């Protein structure tokens, strides 16, 4: 499709933000920054309809648009400090096309689940 401008300055033929993102393999289809110490308050997000807190330091992120399959990539970081080392992982068998369930644990606390102040997760894959 060609890009055109009419006399009113209206542009046509340009993909919408959502269409651009959905068709691009290299961009994150969804991302979220949330607080873990206040029952999952969302700080910022895209492509997410909700985040749930079903268990200690566990979160279910639900996507606005389902992924084509469950082989999408999840990349994440969690907050901490030099004295408290934490990690984040996908709960076994809990990565589906519509949701991803993650848990946050303290490596310096023997692997115990631990709520954290701030967490960031991005999801890459085909939708």
């Amino acid at each position: 499709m060609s890009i055109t401008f009419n006399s009113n300055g209206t542009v046509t033929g340009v993909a919408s933000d959502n269409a651009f993102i959905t068709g691009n393999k290299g961009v994150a289809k969804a991302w979220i920054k949330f607080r873990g110490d206040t029952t999952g308050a969302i700080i910022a997000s895209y492509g997410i309809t909700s985040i749930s807190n079903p268990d200690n330091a566990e979160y279910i992120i639900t996507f606005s648009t389902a992924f084509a399959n469950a082989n999408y990539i999840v990349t994440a970081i969690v907050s901490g400090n030099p004295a408290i080392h934490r990690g984040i992982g996908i709960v076994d068998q809990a990565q589906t096309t519509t949701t991803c369930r993650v848990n946050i644990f303290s490596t310096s606390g023997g692997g115990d689940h631990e709520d954290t102040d701030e967490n960031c997760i991005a999801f890459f894959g085909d939708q």
Partner: protein
Amino acid sequence: MKNSDSVILYTEDNGNLVVVVPADNCDLTVEQIQAKDIPSGKPSYIVSRSKVPTDRSFRWAWKLNGSAIETDMTKAKEIHKENIRRARISKLAELDIDFQRALETSADTTAIVSKKQALRDAPSDSAIDSATTETELKSQWNTSILGASPYSDK
């Protein structure tokens, strides 16, 4: 009113209360998110976010009474006892070192043995079982043997 002014509550099969925070920028209403994101067949409730307790000390003892959140005191007592067990691990390790040093110098170990026994007995304190509120439960934390309360910064 923003979506995030509300939360959606439901109970998982394991009894855990799930708090669902709806996103603001997803072009769906809270009711639409409820229909889309809550597992089918689960009764769920949209409530004001202000109804969610800010004190999460006993978060995993929360349960639904209708659409209201309340604390399951039986679960809360187990959480409290687990907090005691975690806190005493390092205390017992320190006392083990003190005990070994006392043995090496043939010093009196009576006080050390007494402290270790107090730590072992701490989770079974009868005052824990008789607590009827979160506040009463939190007060059953002996800082002289367990150190700082985990609830003091909540």
